[in-house]
């Protein structure tokens, strides 16, 4: 296969913002700000995200004491956004970490395992890739009951395949390279070659797809929570906030939708920029 085929997925997904400093710096700043807001939520706001206040319902943004306003039950929107960032980012990072871990393990195993095991892993990945997984995740979430663990497991089970296939392809592609054979020739053991020569070479593409997986996981979490099958409703997450706000869209309180939606979109875009920068300039011929 031509070299182009191994790069195509990255080139297609990596938005072609060349890692020019302003875009990357802005993306990192956005992620750092959201991360800090999530970590410091209890210190940034004196209010309780679940406490209702019947004397201050449906306030518009800019009301005194409620910077982003309140919802119909009088819960402070800024507070809910901060605590929502905790849930959404936690789920995104944990699910992506598990996805990448499982993917690397299975991909690495497939690359070094006997032929039948390799075939089993690769075919399983193919079969799973051709099923619409949101549907299965939905059913799984419904059967297992909504909880943080369900969401994380569902996301990991439905997205390890690309990582595994890339790791497998990278390792197999490198097995016969001259420097690897030289390392064997110098008497290094299989384990040493794997750790010192094969894995480091395979890491850059894996790092890039790992970053994309974070964005993918945040997207998946928000979609599931939005549909009421993700994070339990009493636990604010950006997706949950959108579910509750959806009915306000037609009554004019558009900001209750716009604010969480903007947070989700900004996070995914920022993650994509960082992931694209890790992937390096793509040679798909774009001008960015």
């Amino acid at each position, binding site marked *: 296969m031509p070299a182009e085929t191994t790069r195509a997925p990255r*080139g297609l997904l990596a938005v072609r*913002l060349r890692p020019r400093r302003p875009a990357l710096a802005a993306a990192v700043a956005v992620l750092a700000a959201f991360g800090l807001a999530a970590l410091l939520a209890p210190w940034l706001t004196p209010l309780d995200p679940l406490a209702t206040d019947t004397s201050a319902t449906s306030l518009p943004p800019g009301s005194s004491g409620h910077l982003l306003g309140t919802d119909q039950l009088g819960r402070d929107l800024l507070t809910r956004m901060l605590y929502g960032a905790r849930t959404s980012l936690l789920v995104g990072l944990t699910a992506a970490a598990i996805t990448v871990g499982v993917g690397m393990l299975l991909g690495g195993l497939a690359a070094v395992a006997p032929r039948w095991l390799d075939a089993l892993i690769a075919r399983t990945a193919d079969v799973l890739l051709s099923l619409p997984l949101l549907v299965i995740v939905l059913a799984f979430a*419904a*059967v297992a009951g909504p909880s943080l663990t369900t969401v994380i497991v569902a996301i990991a089970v439905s997205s390890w395949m690309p990582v595994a296939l890339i790791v497998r392809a990278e390792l197999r592609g490198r097995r016969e390279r001259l420097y690897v054979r030289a390392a064997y020739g110098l008497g290094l053991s299989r384990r040493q070659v794997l750790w010192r020569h094969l894995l480091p070479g395979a890491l850059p593409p894996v790092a890039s797809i790992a970053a994309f997986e974070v964005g993918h996981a945040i*997207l998946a979490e928000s*979609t599931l929570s939005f549909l009421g099958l993700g994070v339990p409703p009493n636990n604010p997450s950006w997706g949950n906030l959108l579910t509750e706000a959806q009915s306000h869209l*037609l009554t004019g309180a558009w900001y209750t939708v716009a604010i969480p939606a903007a947070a989700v979109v900004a996070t995914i875009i920022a993650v994509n920029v960082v992931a694209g920068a890790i992937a390096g300039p793509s040679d798909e011929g774009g001008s960015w």
Partner: protein
Amino acid sequence: MVLRIARRAATAVLVVVALSAVCFGLLDAAPGDPAASILEARSGGRPPSPAAVAELHAEMGLDDPVHVRYARWVSDALHGDLGTSYMSGTPVTEVLGDTVPWTLLLAAAATVLSFSAALAVGLVAALTRRAWLRRGIDLILFVMGGMPGFVVALLLLYVFAASTQLMPSGGVSRPGEDVTAYGLLAHLTLPACALAFGHHFGIYVRLVESGVGRLRDAPHVQNARVRGLPRRTVVTRHLMRPGLVPFTARLGVGVGTLVAGVYATEVIFSWPGMGREAIEAARAQDYPLLVAIVLVTGLLVVAANLLAELIVAALDPRARRGGTSGPSRPVKEATVAG
């Protein structure tokens, strides 16, 4: 070619078997006892006696070993019996018959819209010599790449239905009115757009752009230009026909992504399709209905993939010869779409 298609068909069968196993597994693992649920529904909500539950349990064959139950479930499914919906008490196949056509209509409209728009935008991006236009397209796609489908849907709903009232906000006809062709078109527009222009739209534009752009200055294209062929002929015959193979190859997966995206779209726009039904079933823990919808969605996607494979074989002589020179397998498709 026959061999290749046979191989693809075999894979499809494998996928269907895996799908049915997953569906059965979900149904089997679902909390609650189906026998108890049925008795409770029959007696109008009164909790049934343990003896009655045990009797029905045995009668339904729920005490048999798992492979027997699986075989019976498959056999029933093949005979068109997917169980009874807990919510409505009607056979699941009836519910599917009422909802699946609406979903197919929506998905078909979105498919046509998404792929023709991707084709147009991709061709412009590949062929234009204006840098600002290309950069503009890049930037828009870039922002779209971060928008989950349901955010696009909410945005469209707000802009076109809530604030300007240009479009109806949901359903398939105005309340109390019959479905008319014109009314249906008006109600179909927003959900179809929301489904078509989710975060995966950029992938198809890129496929067109890179496929055609790579050939733009290829020798055979220059030769065609120098021979004085009209621009239209050069573009359609010499650029598009070979350049669109990666795009076409991806259509099958694309249709699958679209079908998987109907859930959030149908909920937001109150579209009476199987996606909204599935979410309601999931919330009400109506497992037979939910699992049946999972099964139908999976079958639709497998069929779409197989169809796309045939189209590629018709377009690409290399694929017809059974070589592996066709486009690479899609390694990463955002499978969760909203």
